[in-house]
């Protein structure tokens, strides 16, 4: 690494990163924060998509439009495509953020502990045989050209809760207690007589605020499972499940909540029909 941009060789109190190009470092920091801003923007777009879905569901339930499933499918297809694009950008930005983190760590490790002085400048020089620019380029290339890239993106999109909600909402609005097509052979899904249970397995009450375990996909009522777990790590309350859970393994299960809402609305509509006959 060249040291010709060193300002004053006689100044002993030079900054620790002196042998790195300060310009590169500045550009790098600016790029990182710009991308972090973008991530924030994406998250707010995702929140507004969630609000749109909630409004749509409220409308369907309010108007009792369970039969017009074609309408829901159209809503789903349009939104699913844009959601997918947004999630792919999010995936790339998150990857970038991870690389940026790695680069920062790498920088800190490569700089010798002692402040740079005239006598140890050579040590600085030797500590880093790859320039920052080269390092960044290498990591970004690795990310872009990874053979696993497409598979990883697919997995990332598929794992997203909002994507799952949007993808399956038409099915759930039509058949609120049916297992999803891909779940039908899954033994881990709580089913009785081929239907999905809408009840918390601990209180046996119908879900109000369902949360799903990231460890094993079992669903619980938030307040009940939180009271059970407190601040410990415990074995999943479901018989035969060896999942070890803590509070932070739980995330809200919007698809289950949709099942409950639709199921109850349909039941009310049926009761109303019986009363008016």
């Amino acid at each position: 690494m060249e040291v010709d941009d060193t300002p004053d060789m006689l100044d002993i109190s030079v900054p620790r990163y002196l042998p790195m190009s300060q310009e590169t470092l500045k550009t790098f920091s600016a790029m990182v924060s710009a991308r972090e801003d973008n991530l924030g923007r994406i998250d707010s777009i995702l929140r507004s998509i969630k609000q749109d879905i909630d409004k749509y569901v409220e409308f369907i339930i309010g108007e009792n439009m369970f039969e017009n499933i074609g309408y829901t499918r159209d809503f789903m297809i349009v939104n699913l495509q844009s959601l997918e694009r947004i999630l792919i950008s999010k995936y790339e930005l998150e990857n970038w953020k991870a690389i940026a983190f790695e680069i920062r760590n790498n920088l800190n490790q490569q700089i010798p502990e002692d402040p740079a002085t005239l006598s140890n400048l050579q040590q600085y020089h030797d500590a880093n045989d790859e320039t920052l620019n080269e390092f960044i380029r290498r990591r970004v290339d690795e990310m872009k050209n990874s053979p696993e890239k497409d598979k990883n993106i697919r997995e990332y999109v598929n794992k997203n809760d909002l994507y799952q909600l949007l993808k399956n909402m038409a099915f759930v609005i039509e058949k609120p207690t049916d297992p999803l097509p891909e779940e039908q052979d899954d033994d881990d899904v709580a089913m009785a007589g081929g239907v999905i249970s809408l009840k918390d397995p601990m209180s046996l009450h119908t879900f109000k605020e369902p949360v799903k375990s990231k460890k094993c996909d079992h669903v619980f009522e938030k307040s009940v499972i939180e009271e059970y777990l407190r601040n410990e790590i415990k074995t999943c309350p479901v018989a035969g499940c060896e999942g070890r859970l803590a509070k932070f393994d739980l995330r809200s299960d919007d698809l289950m909540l949709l099942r409950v809402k639709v199921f109850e609305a349909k039941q009310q509509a049926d009761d109303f029909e019986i009363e008016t006959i």
Partner: protein
Amino acid sequence: MSLAKTRLQEERKLWRKDHPFGFFAKPEKSADGSLDLTNWRAGIPGRKDTIWEEGIYPITINFPNDYPSKPPKVKFPENFYHPNVYPSGTVCLSILNEEQDWRPAITIKDIVLGVQELLSDPNPDSPAQEPAWKAFAKDKELYTRKVKEQAKRYQNYNA
């Protein structure tokens, strides 16, 4: 209301709506006539085509305050003849043991079905009483006779 109370009320509702054929289970009545949801009485029919089939065997199920975090205690009458039942009547079954396979999602229905299975399919690795365990291990003829005699005694047990 405590989780134990609300859960037991739901268990009762579910049981009344639907339960396995030949079984019964219900909360005891307190002295003042109200239901005591923490103490249930149940009848376990012996499985068809086993030496247990003629009887309906009585158990009590006692739920602790911290149910369903902790399992209920299930008891047959004292001196009930079975390899995995203590002389006190307490049932030794892994799903009823907090240290073993108890989980809060196990329902009363799961428990009575588990006890029914244990009757005709004892666990030779967890002896709880001398007479039945010895006979089961060494003298199948004696064991069969004793079980059938007991079945006759519980032939007419019902709610």
